[in-house]
Structure formats: C-alpha cells, structure tokens
C-alpha cells in the first residue's frame, strides 16, 4: 500500500514552512519597495533599491514558487540563458534612447 502510494505521487512535496517563509519574505520586500516611494528617495539610491528589491522578489518567486531551484539543471539553463539577450537589448536601447534624445534636443532647439 505504502509502495503504490509513493509511486502515485508525480513529484515529492516540500515542507509547508518553506512556502510560508517565501510568502512572508515577498510581503516584506514588497513593503520595502513601497517605502522607497513613500520616503521619496531620489537618484541612484532610488534606482538601485528598486532594482535590488525587484530582482530579489523575482528570484524568490522563480526559485521556490515555480520550483526552479529543484528542477533539472538542463531546464534551468534553457530558461535562464535567453535572458542575456534581453539584457543586450536593454543595453542597446539605452544607447539608442540617449541618441534620440540628443538629436531631438539638438534639432528642436538649435536647428538643423
């Protein structure tokens, strides 16, 4: 009986504690990122705090709620490496955005 019951389960489960911990952490991190706006931090401090809390939250959700931490390494790599393409795209568009702003200001106010 015990044998068949074990076989039926398609995945082993984790202790409830870990989910509750992650859940609590997500609440706390969201609250902190809200405080960033509440206290009106500006400049580099604001941006780095926003990014820090964002990546921490995203990492916790993916690793534990979406079980990526326990998945096969092959799947993890297939999912995470394409993200580098997004990082490249962001870098390209930052440069492009600056150039567009520069040429707009130049031709609007200085003239061609």
């Amino acid at each position, binding site marked *: 009986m015990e044998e068949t019951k074990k076989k039926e389960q398609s*995945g082993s489960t984790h202790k409830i504690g870990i*989910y509750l911990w992650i859940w609590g952490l997500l609440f706390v991190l969201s609250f902190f990122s809200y405080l960033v*706006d509440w206290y009106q931090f500006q400049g580099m401090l604001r941006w780095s705090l926003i990014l820090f809390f964002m990546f921490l939250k*995203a990492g916790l959700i993916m690793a534990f709620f979406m*079980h990526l931490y326990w998945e096969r390494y092959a799947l993890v790599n297939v999912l995470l490496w394409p993200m580098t393409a997004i990082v490249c795209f962001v870098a390209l568009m930052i440069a492009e955005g600056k150039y567009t702003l520069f040429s707009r200001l130049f031709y609007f106010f200085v003239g061609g």
Partner: protein
Amino acid sequence: MSDPKIEGFELEKGFRGMAKDTGSDQTMFKGVHWGKAMMWIFLLSDTFVFSCFLIAYMKGRASTPAEWPNPSEVFALDAFGVPVPLLLIALMTFVLITSSGTMALAVKYGYERNRKMCGYLILATALGGLTFVGMQAYEWSKLIHEGVRPWENPFGAAQFGSFFFMITGFHGTHVSIGVIFLFIYCYKVFAGHYEEGKRGWFTKMKGDYVEVEILGLYWHFVDLVWVFIFAFFYLW
C-alpha cells in the same frame, strides 16, 4: 518537481547532469512532465513579449524631451481625504502576492492528494485574481475620467498613456485568462478529475495533479511580470 528517477538510468545532478542530459540523444528534460516543459517554454516566449513592451517604454521615456508624469502623484489615491501615493498599486501588489502564495500551497496540497485543501486554495487564488482585475478596472476608469488617453494626458509627456494602457492592459489580460482557468481547475479538482485520472485538455492522456502545478507556473509568472511592472512603471 525534485529528484526525478528513471529506471535503468543514473541521473547526475548539476552541471555534469546537464551535460549528460543534453548529450544523451533521448529526452532532454529528464523527469520533467511534458506539459510542464511546454508551459515553461511558453512562459519564456511570454517573457520576451513583456520585455519588448517594457524596453519600448524605457526607450520612449528616455528619448522624450517632455517631462514624464510623476507616477507617485498620478496613481495617488485619496484615503480619508489625504492623498496617499501609489495606495491602490500597493494594494494590488499585495493581493497578487497573496494569491501567488495560495497557489503555491494549492500545488503542494495537490501533490499530497489533499483534494479539498487544494480546491479551496485554488478558489482563493481565483478570488484574489478577480479582486486584482477589479482594482485594475477601477484604476483604468479613474485615469480615463482624469483625461488620460493613449495619445494625450494632462500630466506630462503624451507617450505615458499609450505605454500605460498597453502594458497594464496586456498584463490584466493575462490575469483574466488565469482567473478563468483557475475557476475551471477549481471545478476539476473538487470534482475529483485528478484522482480518477480523467482525461485532460485536448488530450487522451490521463489527468494528474501535475496539471495544477502547470497552472501554478502560469499564475506565478503573472505575479512575476507584475513585480517588473511595479518596479519600472510605478516606482521608477
């Protein structure tokens, strides 16, 4: 979910395991349910869609000489006569995280074959998602009343409206679709379809609680996207 076992195979962990999985000329994602792998690949493509939206928003915001509306003022909400910055957005964030947590627990109870707990938690998740969509509808109608349009708004740069409606609208669509499926799966769990091994969606294969985990992946992804929208659109 963890430590898959395949008879006759010694599955190694980590980097060596990956090298052997990819080079073995058989199945690459060993011990991973096909539906789960497919959902992950769909989510990867969805990640690219949302990235394109957010990158377009970044580029649009960076390249306009007009001043960008201050989100903490635009999205402020009056509570007892005092404007509180981003109040509604903070509530929406907490509602979505709560529903993400209940979904994670539903997956756990599903694998433990605790039918009732799993069903109730999926129901709670669906209600959380419904609340989120409701709040978003309120947010949209409030901004539309204030004169925000995709082509103009009274607060600043004209591009603001189009990015706002496009990004939050696309995310809201994802939430709405998720809510519909959550209700369907809630019914399927309560009806015991995963215990009897009834056939699943558009397939002759037998249903199993792994389907709850697949739905969970989608729902957590919706929450994940909101984390990025919250950071870049509302806080930045």
